[in-house]
C-alpha cells in the first residue's frame, strides 16, 4: 500500500508570494565557523538588512563555542554506505558479544521487534553491520505481508474513517522493511507532539508523519524547518494565527521549550519568546467546510518586517532564521543529544559518551543519522537496564512475533485504554515514558494480549485438545506460538509451575482435555503479559 499523499496543493504551501521589491542594507556581520582542528574561527559575512540597521546593533560573533575534541574523519554521507563486512567496531563502541539477546534489544528499540528468525539473521551481520542495516536503508520501504483491513475485510481508509489513520501507521510498524524509519517517525511524533484534536483533517496528520519518515535520518534543521511550517503544526500551535498585528507566542515558546532548547536552562528568555513569535509571523490558511484548513501559505503582508533580537542577535529574522537560531544556540546540541538518547536508553548517557554525541552532532552539521549510529553502537545501549515498551511498540512487536497483520479496527479502542493512540498524543509535550504502567494501563495491556491471541487460543470444549500433554510440552507449545521469545529463568520456572499446578486440578476424566486446553490459553496469556514481553 502506497503512503497516502495529499495533493500538493494542500500538503504544502504553494510558492511564496513574491516579496515586494525592497531596499537592502548590506552590513558586515561576524560569526563563528568550525575549523578542521576542532577549534572555531571568526568569519565575516554580509548580512542583508531589510530595514536600515541601527548604528550600534549587535553584529556578532557572540561568545566562542566550546572547543571540539577532535576533527571528525568525515561527515555522514547522505547516501547509504555499504554495510560493514565482518564485525569491525568503531572506537568507543560496545565491545561485548553480539548475539540474539543484543540483536533483540536492537530490533525492539530501533524498530518494532523481530519476526521469527530475524534476530539470528542480524547476528550474522555483526554489530556494526546490524546497526547500519537499520540506519542506512536504501530506496523506498517495502511493506511485507498482507494489506491491512478493517473488521469487515475492507481496505483501510486512513484519511476518512475514524481510527484508520492509526491502523494505517500500525500496519507500517508491523510490515515495513525499514523499521528504524518507522520508529524514528514515532520518536519525532512524540518530539513534535501534534494531535489530531487540533488539526482539521487526518490527512494533515499523515502528511506530518511522512515528514518524519522523510527527514528522520537527515538534518535536524531541515526537519525542524519542515515541521515549523507543516499544516498540522501551523494549526496545532497557532502558527497560522500569528500575525504582525496580533502575535501569537504559542509556537515560539514550544519550539524552544520542547523542540530544541529546553526550559529552565537559561537558553532563552521571555523576550526571546516574543521576538521569535514576531519572526514566525506571516503564515495563514483558508478554511472551508469541505476542505477544512487548506491553502497554507506565507503572506508577506502578515509578516513582521521589523528587526527582532533573538538570543542577542538582531536582524529581520524570518521563520527559517527562527529555526536556524534555535539550532545554533549553544545549548541546543546538549538538548538534542539528551532527548534523542532518552528514546533509546533507560539511563542518561555518561559524560564522555554525551560529549562524543554532541561533537558528532555539531561537526556533522546537525545530522541525526551519525548521532543515532553512535547511540546504537554504544556500550550503554547493550549493557544498560531495560525500558518499558510503549504500548504501540508492544502491540506491533506481538503481531510481528505471531505473524499476524492488521485485520481488525479493535486496536483503535483497545489502544486508547493503554494510553497511546497514534496521532493523539496527550499534549504538546508528548507521551510520558515514565508513566506507561498503572492499574488501568496494565489491565488494558492484558486485554490487548487477549485480543492479539484471539485466533491462537485453543477451544477447550470441542474435544480436540490433547488429554495427555505434559507440563513441559504445554510450555514448549506456548513458547512456539509466541515465536520463542527469550524468557527470564524465573518467568519460565513460574510458567512451568503453573502448568504442573493445573494438572492437579484435574479430578475427573472429562476434565483432562478441556483443562489442558485452558492451561494452554493461560500460558499464552501470561507470556504476553510477562515482563519479558513488556520490556525492551
Amino acid at each position, binding site marked *: 500500500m502506497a503512503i497516502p499523499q495529499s495533493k500538493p496543493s494542500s500538503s504544502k504551501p504553494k510558492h511564496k508570494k513574491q516579496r515586494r521589491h525592497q531596499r537592502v542594507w548590506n552590513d558586515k556581520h561576524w560569526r563563528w565557523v568550525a575549523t578542521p582542528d576542532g577549534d572555531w574561527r571568526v568569519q565575516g559575512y554580509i548580512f542583508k538588512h531589510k530595514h536600515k540597521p541601527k548604528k550600534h546593533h549587535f553584529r556578532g560573533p557572540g561568545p566562542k563555542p566550546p572547543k571540539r575534541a577532535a576533527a571528525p574523519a568525515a561527515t555522514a554521507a547522505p547516501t547509504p554506505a555499504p554495510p560493514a563486512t565482518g564485525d569491525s567496531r568503531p572506537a568507543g563502541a560496545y565491545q561485548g558479544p553480539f548475539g540474539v539477546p543484543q540483536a533483540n534489544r536492537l530490533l525492539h528499540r530501533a524498530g518494532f521487534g523481530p519476526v521469527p528468525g530475524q534476530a539470528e539473521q542480524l547476528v550474522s551481520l555483526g554489530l556494526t553491520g546490524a546497526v547500519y542495516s537499520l540506519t542506512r536503508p536504501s530506496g523506498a520501504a517495502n511493506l511485507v505481508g498482507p494489506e491491512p483491513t478493517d473488521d469487515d475485510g475492507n481496505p483501510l481508509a486512513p484519511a476518512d474513517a475514524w481510527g484508520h489513520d492509526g491502523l494505517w501507521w500500525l500496519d507500517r510498524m508491523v510490515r515495513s522493511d525499514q523499521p528504524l524509519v518507522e520508529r524514528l517517525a514515532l520518536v519525532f511524533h512524540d518530539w513534535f507532539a501534534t494531535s489530531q*484534536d487540533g488539526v482539521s483533517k487526518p490527512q494533515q496528520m499523515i502528511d506530518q508523519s511522512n515528514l518524519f519518515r522523510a527527514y528522520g535520518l537527515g538534518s535536524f534543521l531541515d526537519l525542524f524547518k519542515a515541521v515549523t511550517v507543516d499544516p498540522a503544526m501551523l494549526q496545532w500551535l497557532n502558527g497560522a494565527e500569528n500575525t504582525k498585528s496580533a502575535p501569537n507566542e504559542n509556537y515560539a515558546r514550544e519550539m524552544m521549550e520542547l523542540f530544541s532548547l529546553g526550559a529552565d536552562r537559561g537558553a532563552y528568555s521571555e523576550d526571546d519568546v516574543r521576538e521569535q513569535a514576531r519572526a514566525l509571523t506571516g503564515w495563514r490558511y483558508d478554511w472551508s467546510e469541505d476542505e477544512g484548513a487548506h491553502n497554507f501559505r506565507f503572506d508577506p503582508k502578515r509578516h513582521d518586517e521589523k528587526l527582532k533580537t533573538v538570543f542577542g542577535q538582531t536582524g529581520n529574522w524570518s521563520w527559517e532564521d527562527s529555526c536556524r537560531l534555535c539550532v545554533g544556540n549553544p545549548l541546543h546540541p546538549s538538548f538534542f543529544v539528551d532527548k534523542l538518547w532518552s528514546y533509546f536508553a533507560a539511563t542518561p548517557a555518561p559524560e564522555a559518551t554525551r560529549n562524543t554525541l554532541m561533537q558528532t552532532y555539531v561537526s556533522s552539521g546537525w545530522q541525526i543519522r551519525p548521532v543515532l549510529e553512535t547511540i546504537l553502537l554504544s556500550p550503554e545501549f547493550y549493557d544498560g537496564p531495560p525500558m518499558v515498551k510503549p504500548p504501540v511498540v508492544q502491540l506491533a512487536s506481538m503481531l510481528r512475533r505471531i505473524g499476524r497483520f492488521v485485520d481488525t479496527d479493535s486496536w483503535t479502542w483497545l489502544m486508547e485504554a493503554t494510553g497511546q493512540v497514534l496521532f493523539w498524543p496527550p499534549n504538546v509535550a508528548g507521551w510520558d515514558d515514565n508513566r506507561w504502567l498503572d492499574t*488501568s494501563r496494565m489491565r488494558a495491556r492484558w486485554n490487548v494480549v487477549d485480543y492479539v491471541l484471539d485466533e491462537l487460543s485453543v477451544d477447550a470444549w470441542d474435544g480436540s485438545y490433547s488429554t495427555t500433554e505434559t507440563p513441559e510440552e504445554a510450555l514448549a507449545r506456548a513458547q512456539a506460538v509466541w515465536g520463542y521469545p527469550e524468557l527470564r529463568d524465573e518467568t519460565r520456572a513460574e510458567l512451568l509451575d503453573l502448568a504442573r499446578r*493445573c494438572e492437579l486440578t484435574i479430578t475427573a476424566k472429562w476434565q483432562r482435555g478441556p483443562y489442558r486446553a485452558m492451561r494452554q490459553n*493461560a500460558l499464552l496469556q501470561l507470556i504476553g503479559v510477562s515482563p519479558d514481553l513488556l520490556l525492551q
Partner: protein
Amino acid sequence: MHNCCNNYTRSQLLRAGAAEAGKGLPAIEPGMPEPAGTGLSRRRFLSRSAGLALSVYGASKIPLSAFETGIAQAAPGDKILVSVFFDGGIDAMSVLAPVGDPKYAALRPTLAAKAGDGTTFGEDSRLQWHPSAAGLATLHAEQKVSVFPAIGYDHPDQSHFTSRHYYEIGELNVGFRTGWMGRYLDIVGDEENPLQGLSMDGSLSPMIATAQKPVAAIDSVDGYDLWAAVSDPVRAEMFKSFAKFGALPADSPALAQVRRATAQTDKLRTELGGLGGFTSPVPYPDNYFGHKLAGLAAYIAAGLPIRVVTISAAGGYDTHSGQAADLSDNLKDTCDGLLAFQRDLENRGLADRVLVEVWSEFGRRPEENGSAGTDHGAAGCAFVIGSKANGQMVGEFPGLEKLDQNDNLRVTSDFRGMYCSLLEQWLGQDAGPIIPGAAGFARPTLVKA
C-alpha cells in the same frame, strides 16, 4: 474539532494538566485564567465499598484508608445536584429555535429550523424545540424542566476558556481557584468522603474544586475485569502466577515498574472483580453519556454518599461549521440520555432527591457564519430538570429585533442567580458565603414548593 478555536484545544490541555496536578502545567496564554483546582494533589484510591477506582483530590494529609471509613459512614439521603455541561458553547437558538421571530430566517439563511419541525415551546409560542431535544420537550410538558432561554452575565466574554471558568467558579473573576460547588462542599462536606463531589469524566471538574474537603473523579462506571479464554479452576491458577510475576524481585527500575503494576492490577482485580456491572430498570441510549448516567443512577440507588456530580454532555458543541448535523446528533444523545435518567430515577423512587442542571459557557451568534455554522455569542440556554423542578421559564426570550452591541443575543437571566436558587432552595445552603455578591442577584423559583 472545527476551525477557529485552537485556543480551545490549548485550554483543554491546560485542564488536562490541572487534572494531573503535579505534572506541571503547559504555559498559559496572557490573560487566561488557570482552571480552579489547579495544584490540588491527586491520589489514586480504590473504594471497595463503592466498587470504584477513584482519583481523589485534595486533603493529602488524610490517609486513604480513612476515606474508606468516611464513605461507609457518610449518611446517604441528601439532595443531589448533577451538573451536565454542553462543552463548547451550545447554540441556544437551535435548541429552542425562534421560528416565530420575524428576524430569524434572515439571520439563519441555511440553518433556520422550519416551523412545525419540532414541538412548540409551551411557554413562548415563538420558540420551537429542536427535534433532537424531544427528551427535554417531553419532560417540559410534564413540568419537570425550568428553561432559561437567555442566560449569561453582563459584559459577556467570548473566550471558551474564560467564560467557562466564570460559570465553573460562580463569579466573574479569573483568579478564583475553587468552584462554586466546591465551596458548597467546603461548608457542608465530610472530611473523609471523596464521593461527595464526583466528576464522571475522568478528571476533576473545576466546578467541584474545593479548598479543603476531598472530592473524586472516576474514569469508568464499569467494573474492572481482565479477559482471557480461561475459566476456573485453571483461571485461579493463572492469576496466582500473574500475582507471582508481580512479587518477584526486580533488578532494574523498568522491571520494578512492571512488577509493581502487575501486583497492583492483580490486587484490584480481586477487589473489584465481583462488582462487574449494574443493571438499569429502563433502557438508555447506547452511547457513552447514557452509560455514565445509567451508572450514576445505579450508584445513587446503591446508597453511595454523593452530593454533587459533574458530567459532560455527549459530544462537543463548538459548531463553527457544519452545525446542523453535528448538533443534531450530539443533542439527541444528550437529551435522550437525560430523559432515560429521569425515568430511571422515577422507577427507582429516587426522583425527589435529584436535580439536574444543564448549562454551557455561552450561546452562539444569532447570525450564522459563512460555513454553515455559528461563532461565539453571548446569552445561552440552561435547564433545571427533575421531578422537583419548578418547571417555569426564567427570564424571557429577548427577541432578535434588538441585539447587544456585538450583535449577540441579550441576556435576560444571570447564571449566578440560578446558582443562588439551587443552593438555597435545593441544597438548603445560604448562598452568601458561596457566591460573591449573592445578595444582589434575583432568585428565580427553581424548586417546587
